[in-house]
């Protein structure tokens, strides 16, 4: 299915926004809490809109906007110097009807296996680092490092779309 989309232009922003706004808002609410999620939501879609005119294709748009949301949440976290709201229970159903893994698995393909798994578990399935560590057979701290180094690597790639 991705193949058939590969040559198509991004949809009108209205459709992109309508398709992803609820999931992004739910995601941000869990990352930064209900109040700050409002500003983070606006910032996420404004950043997406600024970059939207430069998109050359319609692939991975959900993973793309989730990456932006993740970055906005990280900035918010840095500003507040407070901990991220960790999700108590992974509940991907509230974020999306299908696993974020489907999009993230494409986006993260270039990553080394451990980083890729950490990013997908963290952002696709919303596992906390305790759970990711358990899944990967490493410490929570090592899981956190793998995920953040994976995200950094993806950011460097995304900066030149």
């Amino acid at each position, binding site marked *: 299915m991705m193949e058939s989309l590969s040559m198509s232009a991004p*949809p*009108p*922003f209205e459709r992109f926004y309508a398709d992803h*706004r*609820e999931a992004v808002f*739910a995601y941000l609410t869990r990352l930064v809490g209900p109040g700050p999620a409002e500003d983070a*939501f606006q910032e996420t879609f*404004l950043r997406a809109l600024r970059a939207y*005119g430069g998109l050359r294709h319609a692939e991975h748009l959900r993973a793309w906007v989730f990456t932006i949301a993740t970055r906005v949440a990280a900035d918010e976290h840095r500003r507040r110097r407070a901990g991220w709201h960790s999700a108590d229970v992974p509940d991907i159903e*509230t974020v999306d009807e299908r696993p974020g893994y489907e999009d993230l698995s494409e986006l993260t393909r270039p990553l080394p296996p451990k980083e890729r798994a950490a990013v997908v578990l963290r952002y696709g399935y919303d596992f906390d680092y305790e759970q990711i560590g358990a899944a990967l057979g490493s410490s929570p701290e090592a899981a956190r490092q793998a995920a953040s180094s994976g995200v950094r690597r993806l950011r460097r790639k995304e900066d030149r779309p």
Partner: protein
Amino acid sequence: MTLSPDLDRRFREAAAAEGLLDVSYDLADSPLGPLLVARTQRGVCRISFDPEPARAEEELARAFGARLLRVPRAVDDVRRELEEYFEGERRGFEVTVDLRLARDFSRRVLEQLALVPYGRTTTYGTLATQAGRPRAARAVGTVMNRNPIPIVLPCHRVVGSTGALVGYGGGLERKRQLLALEGAL
């Protein structure tokens, strides 16, 4: 946790206020039925009868750019002028128009069309002459039929040389209503 209508509205308005949009649009009520009104940074670029938003979004995004969003507030000035027009309180429009997609002959015809005064009619042939191609009345008909900004660009004021209404992109009944509103029938 669902997105509140207020936050949704604030995002849309921020996007427009920051000048990030190629196109913003909304629907507007009118005595002729709902209208879709779209604008770019330059001005009104589309008014459609019988709007189908999803299709219009695709078409407008192809024509003017993908950064398209429905922002009611962004077309408030156009909506207000249209309301005043339909209430008989406005005889000319002040909003600017974006005709960047109309070229050459079409462009000249639409520019001449914009000068036809409220409550008057002109003919396809006259417009053709004014646009520099006296024998192109039929081509003027085509330009009228594809007029991207009806009402504001008053193609309803263009009739046949016998005075017959001839045709209208939004249907003849609407042409009749607009001319009746202006007291030109």
